[in-house]
């Protein structure tokens, strides 16, 4: 008999609108891995009734693409994804529906229709991070930052999927500063010092993550928190992602699409 492989009837509806979304990973849910988040978004899209478009083929996949995701355990106020839709929606309504369909802590902050050319990834060249370091004093951190900045290369090691790799962390760092800890957030135990690092890192290959920079600080200045803290329990938050301007500002990747008239290109 020899049946031919079962193929779905007809094709999938085409994409009629693309929407880019900024979302946050906050509090305990910063421990959501990218894989976990991708699954949660897919379900939230169904719950929220988002008219997502699907890829062609025998096992169609929803048209969702993610920009570089923050590492597991790192909080973020600026993660991005793009949705391909088979029906037009009001981006603001999509933002609210999707946010309501996700657990509190995975918060959808903004949705913008895409009018311009260029992928999300093209518009992301750097990230700003804020790192809380319990057990580290302001002086300790300032000294370490000064030592780091004085170097032209700071090599660190990390275990990657390809094995142990050594790479430079200094060159990727566009800005690094110890922030006075009077600004430390509520909830941090007052008795223990908690220095805060403000960091702008360029997107490079292999990627330099906030914990790599901490390793760098340890390499150049033996930065080590007092017991029982460790550098691994530092709390990092991505504050912004986008294009790094020569002035050192980060322009977020939705900016170009917020006001299509002003851009004047389609």
């Amino acid at each position, binding site marked *: *008999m020899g049946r031919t492989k079962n193929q779905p009837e007809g094709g999938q509806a085409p994409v009629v609108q693309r929407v880019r979304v900024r979302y946050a990973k906050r509090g305990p849910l910063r421990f959501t891995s990218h894989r*976990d988040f991708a699954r949660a978004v897919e379900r939230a899209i*169904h719950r929220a009734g988002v008219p997502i478009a699907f890829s062609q083929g025998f096992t169609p996949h929803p048209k969702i693409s993610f920009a570089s995701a923050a590492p597991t355990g790192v909080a973020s106020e600026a993660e991005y994804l793009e949705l391909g839709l088979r029906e037009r929606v009001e981006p603001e309504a999509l933002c609210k529906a999707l946010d309501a369909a996700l657990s509190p802590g995975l918060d959808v902050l903004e949705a913008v229709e895409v009018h311009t050319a260029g992928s999300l990834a093209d518009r992301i060249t750097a990230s700003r991070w804020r790192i809380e370091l319990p057990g580290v004093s302001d002086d300790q951190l300032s000294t370490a930052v000064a030592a780091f900045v004085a170097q032209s290369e700071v090599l660190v090691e990390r275990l990657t999927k390809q094995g142990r790799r050594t790479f430079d962390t200094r060159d990727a760092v566009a800005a690094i500063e110890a922030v006075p800890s009077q600004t430390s957030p509520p909830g941090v135990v007052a008795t223990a010092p908690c220095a805060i690092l403000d960091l702008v890192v360029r997107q490079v290959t292999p990627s330099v993550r906030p914990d790599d920079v901490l390793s760098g600080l340890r390499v150049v200045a033996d930065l080590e928190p007092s017991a029982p803290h460790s550098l691994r329990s530092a709390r990092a938050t991505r504050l912004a992602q986008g294009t790094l301007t020569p002035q050192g500002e980060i322009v977020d990747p939705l900016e170009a699409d917020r006001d299509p008239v002003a851009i004047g290109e389609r």
Partner: protein
Amino acid sequence: MRGESVFPQLEQLLPLISKPIQYVGGELGAVVKPWESATVRWVLSYPDAYEVGLPNQGVQILYEVLNEREDVLAERTYAVWPDLEKLMREHDVPQFTVDSHRAVGDFDLFGLSFSTELGYTNMLTELSLAKIPLLAADRDESHPIVVAGGHAAFNPEPIADFIDAAVLGDGEEAVLEITDIVAAWKREGSPGGRDEILLRLAKTESVYVPRFYDVDYLADGRIQRVVPNRPGVPFRVHKRTTMDLDAWPYPKKPLVPLAETVHERFAVEIFRGCTRGCRFCQAGMITRPVRERSITTVAQMVHEGLEFSGFTEVGLLSLSSADHSEIGDICSGLADQYQGTNVSLSLPSTRVDAFNIDLAQELSRNGRRTGLTFAPEGGSERIRKVINKMVTEEDLIRTVTTAYSNGWRQVKLYFMCGLPTETDEDVLQIARLAHNVIKSGRQATGSKDIRCTVSIGGFVPKPHTPFQWAAMERPEVIDGRLKALKNEINSDRSLGRAIGFRYHDGEPSLIEGLLARGDRRVGAVIRKVWEEGGRFDGWSEHFSYRRWVDACAEVLPGFGVDLDWFTTREREQSEVLPWDHLDSGLDKDWLWQDWQDALTEYEQDDCRWTPCFDCGVCPSMDTQIQIGPTGRKLLPITPVNTGLRVPAGA
């Protein structure tokens, strides 16, 4: 302060361990209530890893039923992996709930659901991390009441020293009754302390409190008798049966985790109980009678559950799903309703019957075609009569051939090894059967591109089944049979290439057998194994046979018994079994007769279609079979997608 979150301490440890997401909660459907808002506070646990425990239906149902009550708070806890356990001990972080990260020791009641006995060591880890004394006798008013449930609770004797109480059977109504009793006692100012509340529970006759029973032994190690040591405590404790499942349509709001778990689907139980009468099947014996959910309730649950959860897969669960009186209409009706959507439907437990292929065809209309599994359980016609699995070889070949002809290229066949009266020949017959399946399949399809997988599980005799008296086979005999079977399958290279072979070795089954049919003396073995590092015994990479054998050798001789005594020894009719005072409704004389029928290869029909065979359950539990057909049909529904669901007030 009681009920305070331990998250700040836990948070420090999470960057240091694998898969921290499993410990932070945040699931859809999770309920967080203020500590002071509740009179009675439950913590529920499925004592295995989060990825296995979270999808557990029993815990999800009780969690929802309890949290629907305004004055009740229920949270969940799971077994933590050894990496986190070590850090929690070092940093003095207690066993916590995933919902609000409260310390387990702060709650009033600690309910543990055991679907397998291999979770016992994990219970000890949870108790110890919660700083609850391991022995029930050492606890006071400040500690939660530890309650065991689930199928293993039908013989909780091996864990009798560690639990305060056990509930047999369906939990929906039982947890609410226990809650009411505890609430009343607390309102009165907790008179009489722990002893009094346990006594009040015991007097219901449906909560078993081991400390109120004394076990006497004969000189040869057998049990002489089990008797209450308190006035007002019943001689026998009865199982609970929830009737009218349409009145209990849970879960309504299934938990949807962020972490990946073993079942990523919305499961609807389409009926409870089974009277097929497979003699090895404890689930079928202890959940009688059959109670169906109606076609309309099933459809409504599917609809609402999908909308709530965003899952795209639905499992229609039961012990033998194709036996629902309206399964044909359920499958075609749901397939109609979800045609053209990305929702896929599956029917996990099916019997060997061509009718199932029709159902599977209906369910795979949306394009996704999952594998088909059939469970003949025994390789030879003879052994299938012993276990009362009424499947002929012709049935099997016809069913599987139909599946191949309809486009399935892979089927899975499930068998057991180590069954009572089993010989080498019975097991080798599995190979012949698999060869015939492939031959017939190739003939029917004209294609060599078909496969089957033979999967073998070890038989474990369980309490409250006709095989509760049976001797287990020794692991080395099982392993020898499996090796011979593998050779036999590959004796024909052309056919063997198309047959996959999966099996577990006999050692874990023997330990499961010890725990399933053990008595209170086995508790000391469990404790010893746990002290020696035993954790996650249901996981082959963590299970150590050596550790169990050594603990048995150290502990059991003191009682005049040993591992063999509990496992490979056949029991006589007159022997008092450790669970005789626990009433599943099954008449012990009927079970014995069914055991004798097994030995004479006499088959017993299903009471849904033939007259009652007096297993004893319905009259003793005052229950009856609840089955359709209702005659109702599912109406087509408008496509699920009706635009964005923006919450009101957003």
